[in-house]
């Protein structure tokens, strides 16, 4: 809620209330968020950030719950962000990932936050990037981000992760087709969950066949793992493969690249935020309507007006008669 500003020191100390408040602040954006992120950013880079994506119902939340517990079993901590879509009509959302994360979320070494997509493509990846920054700075060893593998913004979020895990489940028919459309390229680890159900072998075979289609062998071949998340089977193996992937990124210099990309996302969104503020200020300017009329009449050009908006100097109707 409102009240005292979030103390970066408390976030860095992993104080739960402060982490929670900080997530709210950075999700909202604006100057307070930028200042907080700036303080936290130098303290990031420790966490292994893992993106988990796949169709609804394949068992992502159950997997994340189990992975967080498996990490705890190894003495490590985990922060979780789960993204669910907002209604495009009302902006509201029902965030239900917590239902399948009941076990891990009561562990003092785990912190889970639900994030609504709020419709805006750029805004979502900014909010996600900022949330990852907070959890990383708070000292979590793993940061797990769950998204429904659907739109462009989800792919953008996955680009923020060091390792991307694409989850499938047998019997969800069009799955393999769905991942062909863009997600195959970003997968570092494939997980076929619900291996207790018939058809898991087929999914694994189809995936393997698809990976073999690659023209030349990639430097990293995504392993294909099978799990039964509901029974917590196969989860340690995932953590091992993720650690192996991180070592690969480290050795090949790709880890630094991903970090640059994450920072770029934060900067890019700070730019959009600044532009949005300037535009809002310009629209409040008493001369705004006249400036627009002048553009319509051709006595002023749109890009000149845009430059003036970006300078933030006001006086929109200056020089118009």
């Amino acid at each position, binding site marked *: 809620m409102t009240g005292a500003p979030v103390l970066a020191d408390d976030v860095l100390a992993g104080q739960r209330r402060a982490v929670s408040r900080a997530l709210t602040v950075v999700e909202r*954006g604006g100057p307070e968020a930028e200042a907080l992120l700036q303080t936290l950013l130098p303290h990031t880079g420790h966490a292994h950030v893992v993106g988990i994506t796949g169709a609804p119902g394949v068992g992502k939340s159950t997997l994340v719950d189990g992975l967080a517990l498996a990490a705890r079993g190894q003495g490590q901590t985990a922060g979780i962000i789960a993204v669910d879509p907002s209604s495009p009509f009302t902006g*509201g959302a*029902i965030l239900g990932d917590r239902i399948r994360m009941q076990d891990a979320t009561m562990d003092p070494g785990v912190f889970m936050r639900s994030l609504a997509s709020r419709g805006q493509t750029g805004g979502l990846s900014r909010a996600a990037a900022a949330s990852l920054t907070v959890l990383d700075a708070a000292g979590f060893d793993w940061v797990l981000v769950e998204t429904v593998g659907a739109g462009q913004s989800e792919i953008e979020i996955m680009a923020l992760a060091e390792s991307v895990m694409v989850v499938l489940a047998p019997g969800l028919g069009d799955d393999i087709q769905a991942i062909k459309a863009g997600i195959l390229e970003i997968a570092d680890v494939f997980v076929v969950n619900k291996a207790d159900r018939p058809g898991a072998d087929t999914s694994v075979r189809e995936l393997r066949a698809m990976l073999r289609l690659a023209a030349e062998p990639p430097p990293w071949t995504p392993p294909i793992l099978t799990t039964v998340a509901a029974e917590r089977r196969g989860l340690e193996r995932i953590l091992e493969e993720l650690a192996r992937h991180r070592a690969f990124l480290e050795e090949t210099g790709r880890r630094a690249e991903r970090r640059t990309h994450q920072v770029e996302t934060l900067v890019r969104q700070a730019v959009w935020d600044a532009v949005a503020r300037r535009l809002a200020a310009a629209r409040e300017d008493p001369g705004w309507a006249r400036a627009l009329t002048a553009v319509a009449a051709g006595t002023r050009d749109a890009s000149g007006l845009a430059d003036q908006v970006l300078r933030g100097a006001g006086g929109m109707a200056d020089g118009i008669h």
Partner: protein
Amino acid sequence: MRDGGERVIRVLVAKPGLDGHDRGAKVIARALRDAGMEVVYTGLHQTPEQVAEAALQEDVQVVALSILSGAHPTLVPRIARLLRENGQGDVLLLLGGIVPEQDVPSMLEAGVSRVFGPGTDTRDIVRYIQERVGDS
């Protein structure tokens, strides 16, 4: 939009205790979503500790409890106390479901801001929340 402007209202809808009646909670969750709020729903059978921990991690402004089992006299004061202990004594705590008239004063005393019984029009609930936490 996400530019530091308006604040979206976040609500935790929780079903504490062994109560399996979840229709009301789902009706409420949908109504609040349709009113533009972000609703964290945690499912059935929550302990007071789980409810408070979820409220903490999700940084909600509203905790909406739905209880039809008659267990409110034990569950609600514990949840209210845990919220205060976590520094969230200022969240709007609402209770709905089957709460006999004579229990209402003790619920309000425990920290509940209002009790909503069967037949409540969800629009009244939306308005009540918006008036209290909208624009904060």
